């Protein structure tokens, strides 16, 4: 009898299938506290047609599939939730298929990473930019958009799913479909509307509704004039109020705020980093731009005015131009604003990294930070909050990052801490992002039951045999 492994080998070639114990171990876990589970096989397709054959085979054999790009979602999302799953590692599908200068989008495969996009655009389309995360440069741009993540244009344009013009996916039943304007053919990936917006069938689903094999993502013109500033502020409410004013005035393309401990880490302070009485609570990197020097100058003056006004309440608030930051820290500092991935070094301190992150109503942002801080401090972790105003201040993001050694005791403690943070977030009606199963289940308990039921029905409709990432999102 032909074994399952042999059947997969027939599709992708023997070199691209493994059931070795090394692969089963490494793909069974990630950097987070989420419990491991071994897959039975790992397969690496290189084309959409191979993905299609894999999905068809999985249907015939009733084998669960888990899509994997680089496994750095920080939510345990590529860890199988059921036994005998097959990991579909997509890194061989790594082509940037097209950059349309006029329509300002790129069409990429799932193995394409931020680093590769950055290099490709710099070399071939220097007037265009994508938007970059603080993750390692080598994480998938498609996975990031599917997860509705946030990057350095999110303060202006919102979560990463907003950047999707359309996509091609292999459905759980094996059909290859397109959504968005490219239903009328290649070189027409200009947008999603006016159509039933089926991009939403794939974003936020954590790989439960199919395997995306192509995606068109929006690019933006590089602004000719830019300036960067660092803003140091005190107190959660005052910091968030000030950020709200700055972003509502449409001054910043990006505003990423970090606990001051993270700023200290950036300049090389070794772990563990403690917060010291009297130092600022947050450092925010602000990116201002303009189509002319005059426009930029106007924004700078307005920003200085807003910060000066804030000094009535908090005289120690400090706005400094990035040139001064770079002099103080190092030239590396320019890298952090130019390509935020360059700043993620301090998150590689140990073998463990996790966070509880959410999108939240602006009204509840400050309170979430105050109370979250209390929880993190209670557990004795470093204060590593990261917050971002999103989509022109329509909503906000916050997360508390925990870097830790993955031993049994820490895993337990981290789970408890994240649990408490999640309870707090849900109390404030925040929506957790990149939810591990335990977190999704807590969300279900509080969410409109008809919403959860609708999600379940759509999933069942698309995936009658339940082969795509079963158990994910607590379904």
């Amino acid at each position: 009898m032909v074994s399952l492994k042999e059947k997969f080998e027939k599709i992708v070639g023997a070199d691209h299938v493994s059931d070795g114990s090394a692969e089963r171990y490494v793909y069974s876990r990630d950097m987070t506290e989420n419990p491991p589970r071994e897959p039975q096989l790992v397969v690496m397709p290189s084309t959409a047609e191979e993905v299609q054959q894999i999905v068809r085979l999985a249907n015939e054999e009733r084998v669960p599939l888990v899509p994997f790009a680089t496994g750095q979602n920080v939510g345990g999302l590529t860890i199988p939730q059921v036994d005998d799953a097959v990991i579909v590692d997509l890194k061989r599908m790594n082509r940037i298929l097209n950059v349309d200068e006029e329509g300002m989008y790129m069409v990429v495969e799932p193995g394409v990473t931020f680093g590769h996009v950055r290099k490709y655009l710099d070399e071939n389309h220097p007037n265009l930019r994508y938007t970059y995360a603080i993750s390692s440069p080598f994480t998938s741009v498609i996975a990031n958009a599917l997860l509705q993540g946030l990057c350095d244009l999110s303060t202006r344009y919102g979560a990463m799913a907003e950047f999707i013009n359309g996509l091609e996916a292999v459905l759980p039943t094996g059909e290859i479909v397109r959504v968005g304007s490219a239903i009328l053919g290649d070189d027409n990936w200009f947008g999603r509307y006016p159509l039933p917006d089926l991009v939403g069938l794939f974003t936020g689903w954590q790989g439960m509704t199919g395997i995306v094999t192509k995606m068109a993502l929006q690019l933006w013109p590089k602004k000719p004039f830019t300036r960067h500033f660092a803003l140091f502020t005190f107190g959660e409410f005052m910091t968030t109020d000030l950020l709200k004013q700055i972003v509502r005035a449409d001054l910043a393309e990006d505003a990423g705020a970090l606990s001051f401990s993270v700023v200290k880490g950036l300049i090389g302070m070794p772990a563990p980093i403690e917060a010291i009485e009297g130092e600022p609570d947050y450092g925010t990197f602000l990116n201002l731009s303009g189509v002319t020097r005059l426009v930029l100058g106007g924004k700078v003056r307005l920003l200085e005015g807003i910060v000066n006004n804030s000094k009535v309440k908090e005289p120690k608030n400090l706005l400094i131009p990035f040139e001064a930051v770079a002099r103080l820290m190092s030239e590396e500092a320019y890298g952090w604003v130019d390509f935020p991935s360059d700043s993620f070094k301090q998150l590689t301190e140990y073998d463990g990294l996790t966070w509880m992150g959410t999108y939240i109503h602006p009204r509840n942002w400050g309170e979430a930070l105050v109370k979250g801080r209390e929880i993190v401090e209670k557990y004795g972790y470093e204060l590593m909050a990261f917050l971002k105003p999103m989509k022109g201040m329509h909503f906000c993001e916050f997360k508390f990052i925990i870097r830790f050694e993955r031993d049994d005791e820490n895993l337990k403690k981290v789970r408890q801490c994240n649990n408490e943070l999640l309870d707090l977030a849900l109390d404030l009606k925040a929506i957790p992002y990149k939810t591990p199963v335990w977190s999704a289940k807590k969300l279900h308990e509080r969410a409109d039951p008809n919403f959860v039921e609708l999600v379940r029905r759509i999933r069942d409709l698309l995936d009658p045999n339940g082969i795509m990432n079963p158990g994910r999102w607590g379904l």
Partner: protein
Amino acid sequence: MTSDESVIEQWLHSCVRCSNCKYVFREYSPSCPSGEHFGFETYYASGRIWLAQALYKGELEWESSLLDPIFACTTCGNCESQCLAPHSEYIVDMIEELRARAVQEIGGLPSHIRFRENVVQCHNPYGAEHHNRNLVETHSLPLQAETVYFVGCTSNYRETQIRDATISVLKKAGVDFTVVDEYCCGSPLIRTGQLDPVNEAAQHNADAIKDAGAKRVVTSCSGCYRTLSRDYPKLDIELGVEVVHITQFLKELIDKGAIVPRSTEHRPIITWHDPCHLGRHMGIYDEPRDVISTLPVDLVEMETTRENAWCCGAGGGAKAAYNDWSVETSKKRIEQALRTGAELIVTACPFCTRNLRDGSSEDGPPVIDITELVGRFI
């Protein structure tokens, strides 16, 4: 090895699997020949580190399917150059310790075991008849001298043109040197986790160098250079002499006027391949370039150089056990070299020379050792 300290234990809670080691930082071109070819996460540094940790903690049982992820790595150290984490400079040490454990627990790869047996029986991994000391007679060398030229097995039994060019250059420069009854330095054994015969060979070499009354050892091979300088002290083998690589020695000889390269009408375009054991493992990047800058040649660098140089594919036992992949890796380096327009590809490691040649086409630029290049102009 005598050191009881486990580098795996030291870094048991390191490596977040951030993928940074997969590509050249800020350049985004591939860095890891192993991961690039095999593709599974297990074939990158991070996968190997997680395996090493899991095996150490007992979360994973030893079994033969682990052998490929453990051994299909050239130990090139490019991952070390890209990793930003605190353990970065210990990655290759972790991989080597993992290999030593693998050899103990499940045995090594058959091709590695074969060259271990050869080293034990013939003192070189090729199983060639041991004849090193004959060179003294052939080249009328003294029995004792200030400098010992440590030929290395690949130069002596395979890439003999490197040995001959080195001896010729040293003679022309008037260097007081000899060769000793050297045994394999142990590099291929250390890199493949087969540590038990290493001490004896190392001690033999130490004694032979001492008997020659030398103050300095010069190696042709980057692997020998690393082993004599970095690994012998870990084995508590003190050579008591200065160890230099031929590129450093050539620079010294040129600087003090013992070698005066003559000019030529045609200045060939050359490119330089940084051997991993010389560059990343030992930090020697400038000396070969300084030497080349004194010659009537024009150096055009490849797109990846120095810390980021793409590996030739031969190291860490990869050539012996995975020749196809090893040559495929070398072909990628050759493609980089071709893009420079070079007429000659120059390096300073017999192992790199061999594999780069294996990756070249017959009508491509010849691959030569730096001593051969210098030899052309003196």
